[in-house]
């Protein structure tokens, strides 16, 4: 939101460049607030209310199976959840999926981005076909993977494990979930990275090759540093996204054999168990984790990204 309002204020400044000093500044600020008021209002309506409401629910004992027991119990739900192995297993699974899938996606996405960036012939075709997985609805794609890994009828199951049922074993099920996740979102990563690649001026790469840099040195010493802000944004988006993984697990293993993510168990408690107190507590914890991840990334931007420091302010 702060970024948003700053941008709006800046555009307001452009609209009234000849305004006087103090009176003009005030007016400018008022215009800025007015301009972002509609967006702020919508944000409050659709996000602030549900968040505050779920925080409120998380502080109560509230099970729809026993509605008469509803009671304000403070942080007791948090104690319950955080001292529960079930939660921590799901948390570990989610972290594992997040770290592995995002790192593999980064490498593959970078490769794909380079290919899309460098392709001269059939550029449109290459870019379109690379984006197909991202265009398919996740649930549909997840079902096709599930059928492919179903013993007896699935071609992948027959090919790789004619004996067992891979989706019913923890390790192989997790591997398949991660694989489906990577297959699906690598194009998104590639798209974000390609935007970053476009930031690297051709002259810079030419200069590096004149300076004696090999292909790999040009990539690591020139391209990556220049692309760093774009890479960080891509990583942030994907990490937040991956941490909330739900649909792939829901379809592929339904969380069986300890393959549940935190989103899955929150769903199970809220929707299946009808335990609004515990479910909301888990939702709030997920929200906090996501906020912490975002905070770490944004802190990283603040210290390392050019553009945000006064490093490149004069550009």
């Amino acid at each position: 939101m702060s970024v948003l309002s700053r941008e709006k204020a800046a555009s307001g400044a452009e609209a009234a460049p000849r305004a006087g000093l103090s009176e003009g500044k005030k007016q400018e600020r008022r215009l800025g607030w007015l301009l972002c008021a509609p967006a702020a209002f919508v944000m409050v309506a659709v996000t602030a209310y549900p968040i505050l409401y779920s925080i409120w629910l998380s502080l109560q004992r509230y099970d729809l199976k026993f509605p008469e027991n509803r009671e304000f119990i403070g942080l007791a739900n948090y104690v319950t959840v955080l001292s529960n192995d079930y939660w921590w297993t799901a948390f570990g699974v989610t972290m594992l999926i997040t770290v592995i899938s995002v790192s593999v996606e980064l490498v593959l996405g970078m490769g794909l981005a380079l290919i899309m960036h460098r392709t001269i012939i059939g550029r449109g075709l290459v870019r379109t076909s690379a984006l197909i997985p991202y265009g398919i609805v996740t649930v549909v794609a997840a079902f096709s993977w599930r059928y492919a890994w179903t013993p007896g009828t699935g071609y992948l199951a027959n090919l790789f494990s004619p004996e067992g049922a891979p989706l019913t074993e923890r390790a192989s099920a997790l591997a398949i979930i991660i694989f489906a996740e990577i297959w699906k979102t690598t194009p998104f990563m590639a798209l974000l990275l390609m935007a970053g690649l476009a930031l690297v001026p051709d002259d810079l790469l030419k200069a590096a090759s004149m300076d004696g840099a090999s292909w790999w040195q040009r990539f690591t010493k020139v391209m990556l540093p220049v692309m760093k802000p774009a890479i960080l944004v891509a990583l942030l988006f994907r990490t937040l996204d991956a941490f909330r993984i739900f649909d792939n697990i829901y379809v592929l293993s339904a969380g069986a054999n300890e393959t549940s993510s935190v989103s899955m168990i929150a769903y199970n408690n809220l929707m299946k168990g009808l335990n609004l107190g515990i479910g909301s507590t888990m939702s709030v914890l997920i929200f906090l984790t996501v906020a912490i991840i975002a905070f770490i990334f944004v802190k990283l931007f603040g210290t390392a990204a050019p553009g945000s420091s006064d490093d490149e302010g004069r550009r």
Partner: protein
Amino acid sequence: MADIVLDKVTKKYPDGTTAVHEIDLEIADGEFIILVGPSGCGKSTTLNMIAGLEDISSGELRIAGERVNDKAPKDRDIAMVFQSYALYPNMTVGENMAFPLKLAKLPKAEIDKKVAEAARVLELTEYLGRKPANLSGGQRQRVAMGRAIVRSPKAFLMDEPLSNLDAKLRVQMRTQVSRLQKQLNTTTVYVTHDQTEAMTLGDRVVVMRGGYIQQVGDPQTLYDNPVNLFVAGFIGSPSMNFLPATVEESVLRTPLGDLPLNDRLRRSLSGADAPRQLIVGIRPEHFEDAALIEEHQRAKGFEFTMPVDLVESMGSDKYVYFTVEGERAVSADLEDLTADAGGADLPPQDNLVTRLSAESRVRDGVDARVWMNLDKIHLFDPGNGHNITLNEGQDAGVATP
């Protein structure tokens, strides 16, 4: 330190267009050579081929006698300065300059020494720890030069290195580049579209147009003896005046009057294929206020009277503009020039620009009697643009089609 030889070097793109046609050029060791021409003339492509950033379609490129057509840029041991400077934004000034040395795996102490030396020469010592984003345009330009000179390469290639600077800084940097080149005595190929830069910097200037070399020579030769209309119009500021002319009996009929044919002109026109329709070219400084001409000079020239349009006093001399009635000189070369200049840099063709002494008393709107030096006029064939007054004995460089 090395000489660079281009032997029938051609650049053809896959779509069939030819950017550079069989260029022959020998650049001597330590020479400062300028490739100049309007945009699209192939000068940057030629430079990129020397650098190795573009493949050579045919012909041979030799650096220090060695064929380098198939060598990667990094193996050619040449440094390049880009118009955009191409500084690495994530590295400090010092790191930028050290980058090529680090890649060459030089020992740290030696790198530090060389960078410090280059920084001293370019007066960058106090900026070594800064990032390029915190430097001014001129400082960035110097860092780019520094990154080139630390390596002591065989040759420097410069692609319009001063174009992004403002006018005043450009003039200062021009002097600095020139001094640096003399000091290092390293072969330098410099690309520019600015004829002033070309004239002031180079030992020799190569004028290019449409992928062909028009003329190669030292700046004075190009100025005094342009081989064709294009070179004549491109070199010099303000540019040469062009007037249509017809050869009659023993005079040259021009909108300024009938010019008597002296021996030099008569000789030029005696060739069997000399056309009857010509274009006369004369530079602004070859006019003078008739009142200031001494008697013995007067006979060498031609005098005419015309109302003055405008007088611009520069202090050292006066630019006096006249309007010439009648037809304009027409030629493909001239159209090219006008197109390149966007019509703005060249005087409209019915204008005659003269440069008279500061003592001249001519005034706006009053008739002036003006003398022009017939020894200095050039006659061009409007068909092919060739300068037919060029002395055969003169070495004015090659002129391919």
